[in-house]
């Protein structure tokens, strides 16, 4: 058992696809919450293999996409300061702030470094006692245990030159916000498997009950995603709305209690803005009072930075599944992967970027600035 190849088997994928076709009798709109699942769906072309009744709405579960503009502006401000080593996961470097991105700060002389793990940033702080090392702590519940451990260790080692710029977000409040939007079309959720590996599934039955939607904890390999879809559709066809675990090899109901304890030691729940969506109550984490010394916003006094998001960008509605990317007037005109207005166009798995690519493939005569087809053509 290697836990990857087995869950990529094309024959078993066909079995699951046949099953999904067999149980589907009418249109259903499912949201995969997690950007990693969106990546896998596009990477394997799963969306094109599903019966046309099943619509997958790409949810807001990409921490890079939803990090609010003002936090990115704070990151840019801190990263540009002399004496700072600013560390970030690679995919944050290209996300535009108000007038530049981290790449540009680096180009202008800022010391911006890509790290694989927050512990790598901690190590940089240990080796560079005369420099301020700041880690851009973005992410969902999956990444929180790692970032929490970095701060915990910094204090244990007595490192005073290490801090976090925190923009942590939580999934359940986002599901609640999506379901309470007036024009919500989502009828079922594939819950993010690795979030559930950490947090467990105890937060979901109340949401499934309250909004009458199936919530299926789902993994990331093709068979995992197909199984998540199969279970969600089956529930919908039977008029059920339960929490199911389609990723039992990595998800236990109780999650990982040691990781949750560390999160709770270091972080506390707070309201947070989501890029494109706006404020969602209790949807984030910030450092607790006891760890406030490690908060880069305070250390560098950037709490006052407030930024307006471009109103022309309707990525928030896309992220909530309220509109398709092609329904945004900026799509393909002022907003392209090369000149993104919103993060759904920045990330190659963002819903807008994915639509843009497929539109180009199917309508090569239409250039940016031209007419936008009503609907994406099915891909042959």
């Amino acid at each position, binding site marked *: 058992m290697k*836990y*990857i190849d087995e869950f990529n088997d094309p024959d*078993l994928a066909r079995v699951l696809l046949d099953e999904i076709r067999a149980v589907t009798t009418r249109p259903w709109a499912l949201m995969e919450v997690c950007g990693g699942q969106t990546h896998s769906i596009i990477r394997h072309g799963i969306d094109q293999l599903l019966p046309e009744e099943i619509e997958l709405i790409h949810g807001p579960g990409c921490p890079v996409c939803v990090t609010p503009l003002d936090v990115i502006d704070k990151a840019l401000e801190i990263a540009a300061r002399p004496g700072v080593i600013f560390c970030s996961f690679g995919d944050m470097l290209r996300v535009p702030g108000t007038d530049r991105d981290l790449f540009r700060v680096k180009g202008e002389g800022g010391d911006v470094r890509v790290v694989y*793990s927050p512990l790598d940033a901690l190590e940089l702080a240990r080796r560079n006692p005369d420099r301020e090392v700041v880690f851009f702590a973005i992410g*969902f519940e999956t990444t929180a245990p790692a970032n929490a451990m970095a701060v915990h260790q910094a204090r244990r080692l007595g490192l005073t030159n290490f801090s976090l710029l925190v923009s942590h977000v939580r999934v359940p409040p986002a599901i609640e916000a999506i379901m309470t939007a007036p024009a919500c079309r989502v009828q079922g959720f594939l819950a993010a498997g690795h979030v559930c590996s950490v947090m467990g599934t105890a937060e979901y039955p109340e949401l499934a009950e309250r909004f009458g939607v199936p919530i299926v904890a789902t993994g990331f390999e093709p068979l995992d995603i197909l199984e998540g879809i199969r279970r969600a559709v089956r529930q919908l066809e*039977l008029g059920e709305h339960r929490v199911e675990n389609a990723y039992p090899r990595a998800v236990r109901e109780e999650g990982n209690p040691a990781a949750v304890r560390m999160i709770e030691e270091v972080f506390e729940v707070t309201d947070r803005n989501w890029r494109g969506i706006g404020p969602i109550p209790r949807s984030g984490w910030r450092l607790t009072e006891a760890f406030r010394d490690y908060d880069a916003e305070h250390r560098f006094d950037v709490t006052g930075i407030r930024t307006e998001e471009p109103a022309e960008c309707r990525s928030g509605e896309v992220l909530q599944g309220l509109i398709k990317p092609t329904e945004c007037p900026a799509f393909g005109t002022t907003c392209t992967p090369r000149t993104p207005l919103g993060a759904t166009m920045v990330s190659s798995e963002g819903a807008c970027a994915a639509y843009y690519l497929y539109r180009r493939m199917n309508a090569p005569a239409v250039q940016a600035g031209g007419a936008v087809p009503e609907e994406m053509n099915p891909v042959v």
Partner: protein
Amino acid sequence: MCLAVPGKVVAIDSTADPLTGMIDFGGVQKQACLDYVRDVKVGEYVIVHVGFALQRLDEESALASLKLFEELGLLEEEFGDAWEQAARDAGVAAVTEETRGGEVR
């Protein structure tokens, strides 16, 4: 969110704080923090995200999932259509051919 990949624990450094181990990802090896899976043993698989093992992978559950998929295939071969079986399992009346909008194979 959350690119996390399964890997096999090949060594544990019990003197490290936090607990650290070497993880093998199909021939590629990298260190990871094992502090959140402290009872893990060499030879077991874990799921790793940004340098942290977040959960042990349960082989029994993985095999059960695969067995379920295989059985769905057999069922399909046998009955040609698993929906009615699924509906029976769930204790609801079988849906007739006419009510289906979807493609039937």
